[in-house]
């Protein structure tokens, strides 16, 4: 076997042949090169496959449009015109015209030649002219005469050329007269064909482009977008559009596209096309399309799909199950294809965040550069820290650039809700977090400094043990304290509270419960509180779930406390958000009677207090309060200036799975959580499963739903249970995922303008004080009017509701608003609901002022409207209009005797309204204040008084404004 080797060894080195060795290795080298090229071109370029698929689909979709466009064409007319066009073109190409054209060319050349010759001649004329003038000055008459003669001769030459040019141009004109009609006719016929063809040529062009488009990487470079681990800036490169090519192509949206996917890329589609032909296939494919993608998001269930398919198939209905069987195995792949090529689902959002500028990974994350593999491109690999954010978790990225925004609706509902829940559940009270508005440093829940005067120890005990069992609306979590722990806490609170020496002002007549109900329902309590008749919905601190639910109070609170509270909430708790509704003592008595009426007793747990006076026992209660962080949400005597109890969440969103403690939780619990959330339509984000089913999303959801689930005998956990619903936990998890402190280069950040800041703090302000419980502002809020509709039994509840305050900044004078916010006085005599006295601080009033001005595009500053002077030219007309329109029929002035008079006192206008506002208001009141009783006197800009001020409605509105602004005396504010 190795004989040849032996033989070779025995051959002298000089005589050995290397040809075979060289041939072998060249072969290996050749094959390796071939493989490298193959691998480079094909295997490692899966995107090429996507691009060709994309262009194929594009050609199909354009083809469909083209066929439609061609259908409506007037073919005969186009044919006739085309015939004429080719005839005319043939004529143009014919010997007759061509001869004329060549003549024209010759004449044109002649013009050029003669022009050159004339220029030569002219320079010679100029030269001899110089000699003539020069010699004349030198008094050399003979030379001068000779030069002059020569000049004249040369001038004749020049003029001869001039004449020749003119002659040639004349000839060109005459030739043009033959050519122009023909060429114009060609253009004209072409234009007619174009207009008759409509979009056909454009579509044909697009199809050509799509057919011949080169396959190439499409990338966006974000200069200096990122920062490396060493703090150096680096650019980010996103190549997502290499595969996701249809993101802004409207062809890849809608039914045609979806049906195209099924027809082209599913075996069920191919089967239907093959067996039934294109025409009969269309309705069947339509059913499959709806079964998979749905109409308006509603996909068909399997049984629905089957019956729909049977009716589409008609006599071949037995085929339905065959088709569905083929189809069921391919669904996921087809949905995937739609995701790859489909248009971005929120195109209006995309308009504001152009991917050509901001890339894709800035919101979606993923490994933007990777192209070699789908999973890698989306960042689903073990060592890539920013995998694609799937499901609603992508909303967390808004925060990266728009930190501090109060609201991300309507584009990002989940993070908006999650952020609100995070605030309303008081999460920030225990967890440090950078993203909390200023006044959130105030305590979220009721003050407990003087709680012993409000609640009995037995109530406190039962409440602490099981808050949501006693009031399903509460946001108070369950700290799962033992009986002894709860007893100790109550003991501490009672002793600390007694030391405060607070004495409630219990002075109010014993009231009438029925009257009290009426007062409560009319004065505005229902703006913030739910009652048995008007139960609150949801646990966000909004609308009537803002304040505590007013049920079960009889066995809960004491009458003296309630009376004092209703009279002046700030007496008991100076920091409370509960405003004063300026109730009279009689009203207070009635409301207290209603709220404390019998039959509303909560069920208390049986418990005996034996150590309420025991100081040492109180100290152990303080230890429990420290351990469980009650002081985070409640103000408690002795717990001032405590630090936040728990860990910071500022970068929680980027915690790795290895950084989370999983305790002893069984594996199958993890997968069940995922399955459950997917089944209720709240899919958790996708992770790669490095360790079984452990990932950030599952951990967070489990923790929120059951805060002590990861507890072990080594690790004590004390987080309280908020009894979160699935959607509450999901929304908060979306928000938590956003807490990543992601670095974004300054040029990409939302730098925030003064206006945006004013809007954001204003939105936080109106939410913090629940202004939106009663008022509609910026299109939201004002839900109290739904309750007013029931209580007043009026069809036009809006007219009985607090006003829409969106226009406030343009409407009222700044000084007046400051005064009104500090100490409100009634404007609308027919309203029973009252603007409460909130006791706003100066800084809060300023926030409100800036907010209302910002909504209206105005800026904050000291302004005075005292200098307003009426236009004398309008005065007489104004008076006539004021009488004619019978303004005072509704706008009673002076003391209001009859509340059915239904309109604000016009004497208030002078110190309340901005002069520019009144004509705006008169133009179309209903457009500004929906449901207002104020009619428009100028419908469609037409005045009913054509004889006054020339019938000019603009002038008339100003004239009326002048009258109104002159009424009454300037009130000092």
């Amino acid at each position, binding site marked *: 076997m190795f004989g040849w080797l032996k033989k070779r060894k025995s051959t002298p080195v000089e005589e050995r042949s290397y040809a075979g060795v060289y041939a072998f290795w060249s072969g290996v080298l050749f094959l390796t090169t071939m493989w490298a090229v193959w691998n480079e071109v094909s295997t490692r370029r899966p995107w090429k496959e996507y691009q060709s698929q994309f262009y194929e689909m594009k050609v199909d979709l354009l083809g469909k449009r083209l066929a439609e466009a061609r259908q409506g064409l007037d073919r005969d007319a186009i044919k006739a015109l085309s015939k004429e066009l080719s005839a005319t073109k043939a004529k143009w190409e014919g010997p007759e015209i061509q001869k004329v054209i060549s003549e024209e060319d010759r004449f044109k050349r002649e013009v050029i030649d003669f022009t050159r010759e004339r220029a030569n001649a002219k320079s010679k004329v100029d030269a001899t002219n110089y000699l003539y003038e020069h010699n004349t000055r030198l008094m050399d008459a003979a030379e001068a005469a000779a030069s002059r003669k020569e000049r004249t001769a040369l001038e004749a030459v020049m003029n001869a050329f001039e004449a020749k040019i003119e002659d040639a141009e004349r000839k060109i004109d005459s030739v043009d007269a033959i050519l122009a009609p023909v060429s114009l006719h060609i253009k004209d016929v072409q234009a007619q064909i174009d207009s008759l063809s409509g979009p056909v040529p454009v579509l044909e062009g697009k199809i050509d482009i799509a057919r011949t488009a080169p396959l190439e990487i499409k990338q966006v470079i974000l200069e200096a977008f990122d920062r490396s681990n060493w703090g150096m800036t680096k650019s980010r490169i996103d190549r997502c559009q290499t595969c996701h090519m249809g993101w802004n192509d409207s062809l890849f949206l809608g039914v045609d596209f979806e049906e195209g996917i099924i027809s082209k890329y599913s075996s069920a589609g191919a089967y239907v096309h093959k067996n039934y032909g294109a025409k009969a296939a269309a309705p069947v494919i339509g059913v499959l399309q709806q079964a998979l993608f749905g109409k308006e998001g509603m996909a068909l269930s399997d049984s629905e799909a089957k019956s729909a398919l049977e009716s589409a198939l008609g006599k071949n209905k037995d085929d339905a199950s065959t088709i569905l069987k083929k189809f069921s195995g391919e669904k996921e792949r087809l949905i995937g294809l739609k995701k790859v090529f489909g248009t971005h689902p929120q195109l209006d959002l995309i308009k504001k965040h152009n991917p050509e500028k901001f890339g894709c990974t800035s919101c979606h994350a993923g490994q933007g550069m990777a192209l070699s593999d789908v999973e890698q491109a989306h960042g689903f690999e073990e060592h890539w820290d920013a995998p694609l954010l799937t499901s609603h978790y992508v909303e967390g990225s808004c925060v990266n650039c728009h930190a501090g925004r109060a609201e991300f609706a309507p584009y990002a509902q989940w993070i908006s809700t999650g952020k609100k829940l995070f605030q309303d559940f008081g999460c920030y009270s225990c967890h440090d977090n950078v993203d909390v508005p200023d006044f959130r440093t105030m305590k979220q829940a009721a003050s407990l400094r003087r709680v012993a005067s409000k609640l009995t120890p037995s109530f406190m005990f039962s409440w602490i043990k099981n808050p949501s069992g006693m009031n399903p609306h509460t946001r108070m979590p369950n700290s799962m304290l033992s009986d002894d722990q709860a007893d100790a806490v109550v003991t501490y609170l009672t002793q600390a509270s007694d030391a405060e020496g607070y004495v409630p002002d219990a002075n109010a007549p014993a009231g009438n419960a029925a009257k009290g109900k009426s007062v409560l329902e009319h004065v505005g309590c229902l703006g913030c509180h739910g009652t048995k008749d008007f139960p609150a919905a949801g646990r966000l601190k909004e609308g009537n779930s803002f304040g505590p639910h007013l049920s079960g109070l009889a066995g809960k609170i004491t009458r003296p406390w309630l009376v004092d509270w209703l009279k002046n909430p700030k007496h008991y708790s100076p920091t409370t958000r509960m405003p004063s509704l300026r109730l009279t003592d009689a009203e207070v008595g009635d409301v207290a009677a209603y709220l404390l009426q019998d039959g509303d007793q909560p069920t208390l747990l049986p418990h005996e207090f034996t150590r309420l006076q025991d100081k040492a026992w109180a100290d152990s209660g303080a230890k429990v309060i420290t351990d469980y962080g009650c002081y985070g949400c409640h103000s408690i005597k002795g717990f001032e200036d405590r630090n936040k109890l728990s860990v910071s969440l500022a970068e929680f969103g980027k915690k790795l799975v290895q950084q989370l403690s999983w305790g002893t939780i069984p594996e199958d619990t993890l997968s069940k959580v995922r399955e459950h959330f997917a089944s209720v339509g709240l899919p958790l984000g996708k992770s790669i499963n490095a360790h079984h089913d452990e990932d950030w999303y599952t951990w967070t959801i489990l923790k929120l739903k059951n805060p002590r689930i990861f507890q072990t005998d080594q690790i004590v956990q004390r987080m309280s249970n908020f009894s979160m619903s699935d959607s509450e936990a999901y929304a908060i998890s979306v928000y938590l995922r956003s807490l990543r402190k992601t670095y974004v280069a300054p040029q990409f950040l939302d730098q925030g303008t003064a206006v945006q800041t004013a809007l954001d703090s204003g939105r936080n302000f109106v939410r913090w004080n629940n202004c939106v419980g009663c008022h509609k502002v910026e299109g939201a809020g004002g839900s109290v009017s739904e309750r007013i509709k029931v209580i007043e039994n009026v*069809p*036009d509840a809006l*007219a009985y509701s607090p006003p829409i305050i969106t226009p406030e900044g343009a409407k009222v004078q700044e000084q007046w608003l400051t005064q009104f916010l500090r100490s409100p006085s009634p404007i609308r005599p027919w309203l029973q609901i009252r603007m409460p006295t909130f006791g706003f601080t100066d800084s809060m009033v300023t926030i409100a002022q800036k907010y209302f001005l910002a909504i209206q595009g105005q800026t904050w500053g000291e302004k005075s409207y005292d200098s307003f002077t009426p236009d004398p030219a309008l005065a007489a007309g104004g008076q006539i209009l004021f009488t*004619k*329109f*019978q303004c005072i*029929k*509704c706008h009673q002035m002076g003391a209001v005797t*009859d509340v*059915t*008079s*239904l309109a604000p006192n016009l004497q208030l206008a002078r110190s309340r309204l901005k002069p520019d506002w009144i004509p705006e208001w008169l133009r179309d*009141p*209903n457009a500004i204040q*929906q*449901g*207002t*009783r*104020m*009619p*428009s*006197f100028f*419908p469609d800009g037409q005045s*009913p*008084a054509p004889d006054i001020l020339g019938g000019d409605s603009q002038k008339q509105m100003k004239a009326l404004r002048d009258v109104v602004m002159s009424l009454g005396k300037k009130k000092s504010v």
Partner: protein
Amino acid sequence: MRKFSLLLAVLVTGYFFTVGCGKKEEANNETAGESAAVDAATAATITGKISFEGTAPSKGDPVKVDADAKCKEMHASSPLYNTPVCVNANNTLKNVFVYVKAGLEGKKFPMPTESVEINQQGCEYHPHVFGIRVGQKLSIKNSDATLHNIHARGVTNAEFNVGQPNQNMVTTKSFDKVEIMVPFRCDVHSWMNAFAGVVDHPYFAVTGDDGTFTIPNLPPGTYTLAAWQEKLGTQELSVTVAAKEKKDVALTFKGQ
């Protein structure tokens, strides 16, 4: 002379207020506009009567109209009553809006050129209930020498609210969507209200003093007929009419 006729009008109006439920209205039985699409040779007619069962509600105290001197003057001797359920002498209901609710889908009917008129007279709306076609002109007149505002509070149609300070002033409006019913009110005089049924075909009627209605010129077919009363709600009835058939139907509302 003008003063005298006004006085006369007031007296006559007053008479009807005290014996009936309001001035006799021209019963709005005409189908607005002829339909070219309907073959006259086969057209059918539905007639009917809306009865009332139970005790007619008492008309209560007269409306307080003192707030407006003009209204007070006009009703000095003829108090105004608010009668949302208006029972005729023959135990039938007045002011019930009857219309074809379903069965005409997809059909188009020519639009009448004449407009529907609503008049504010004697601080009341005349008529109190009426029908109008989508797109048909509504001419709103103020015959009183006082300010009225007509506030249409449609839900599907846009709300409008127009002040009419001049006597005999006319404003024209129209509705662009079907709506049963668009309520009207005058915010100056809180007792004034009216209702418009906006439909997209000519098959509607309002019952008058004898509680009857006629819907003529219908293409043969099966229809859902609906009757709306402002207090007692809506009743529906399926009616099939053959070519040239004249069908009589009866509906009864029970008192509350």
